[in-house]
């Protein structure tokens, strides 16, 4: 299972990471998030060398979601050198996500 990240860890684990970081913004009450979640776990497990992956619960960490202007989940954002480099909103099949993420894991 992919680790849930907190606001306190955001700077050290996401913004200061040397690797690209994929963050899956999700919530318990979001049906499509539950369907994307296992796909994100698989992508994380298959790309441990290239990509760091975390989940962020928007109920518990609303400031981070607000900071990045998120108004829809599931939202997957890739951070590179501390800034958002790619944003994918809405549930997508694994093959589509892999294509969208190709520049980071290809």
């Amino acid at each position, binding site marked *: 299972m992919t680790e849930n990240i907190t606001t306190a860890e955001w700077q050290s684990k996401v913004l200061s990471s040397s690797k690209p970081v994929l963050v899956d913004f999700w919530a318990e009450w979001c*049906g499509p998030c539950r369907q994307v979640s296992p796909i994100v776990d698989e992508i994380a497990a298959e790309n441990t060398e290239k990509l760091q992956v975390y989940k962020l619960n928007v109920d518990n960490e609303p400031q981070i979601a607000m900071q990045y202007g998120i*108004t829809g989940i599931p939202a997957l954002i890739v951070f590179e050198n501390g800034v958002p480099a790619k944003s994918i909103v809405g549930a997508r099949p694994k093959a589509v996500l892999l294509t969208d993420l190709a520049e980071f894991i290809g």
Partner: protein
Amino acid sequence: MREVIIIGSGPAGYTAAIYAARAGLNPLLIASSVEAGGELMKTTEVENYPGFPDGLMGPDLMANFQAQAERFGTEILLDDVIEVDLRGDVKIIKTGEGKTFEAKAVILATGAAYRELGLPREKELSGHGVSWCATCDGFFFRQKTIAVVGGGDSAMEEANFLTRFADKVYLIHRRDSFKASKIMADRALNNPKIEVIWNTGIAGLKGEAKLEGVTLEDTVTGEKRELPLDGLFIAIGNDPRVWLVEGQVDLTPEKFINVEGRSSKTNLPGVFAAGDVIDPTYRQAITAAGSGCVAALDAEHYLTAH
């Protein structure tokens, strides 16, 4: 080779699976990778599904459907069908994960996909103020001003649900009355946080990084005006999902799958269709479920005869 494969996992697909499994047809149901459960996964309280006098949550209803289908031996695959060849006696189905299946009969229960407004920047602003799922995204609009566009039951439900979060919800509709059921429309009309804007369409979306407002157009006078908004929820209906079978299975002029009379039979032997993908009129969970039952019985009859 399989006896029957069901494509789709809404009320039609799961009901077809329950009946086919109980008939001993050992069905495979291909549910989709990220949209399993269908449209009801995006709803909250379902109050009109018979047998549940206190109502229940849409996702819970679909979990029940799935459990009942699995109880009788339905195999469920969380994958997306990307290609079919339904013309021969052996039906061939290919999935996004690269699997190929063969079956003697196929039940198409692919449902309908939400309709877009078709405005410039709609895609870019999706997830940045523009949404199709109130239960997914309503949370992000606490104390905000938002609008729902549409006039059916979904639009009413979304508008009412969104008043839990938003300070103000405009309900924008092209006509001067709703086509929603009376109980749903009355609930919206009586909600003090909802203001209806009648006879009005949306002509444009404003905002760069995120939605900041819309251009409204009066459908009677053609007059335009701006309305500042933090969010826009689109609930203007659905289109049947037929791209997979277009060119193989006959469609109606409105692009629903064409079925024979009250049956689920398409023009192709061994290919049946059920639920919203054949239904331009009723489009309820219960009518879809009934239609899924019809398809399973038709498929069973076909398999016995062949």
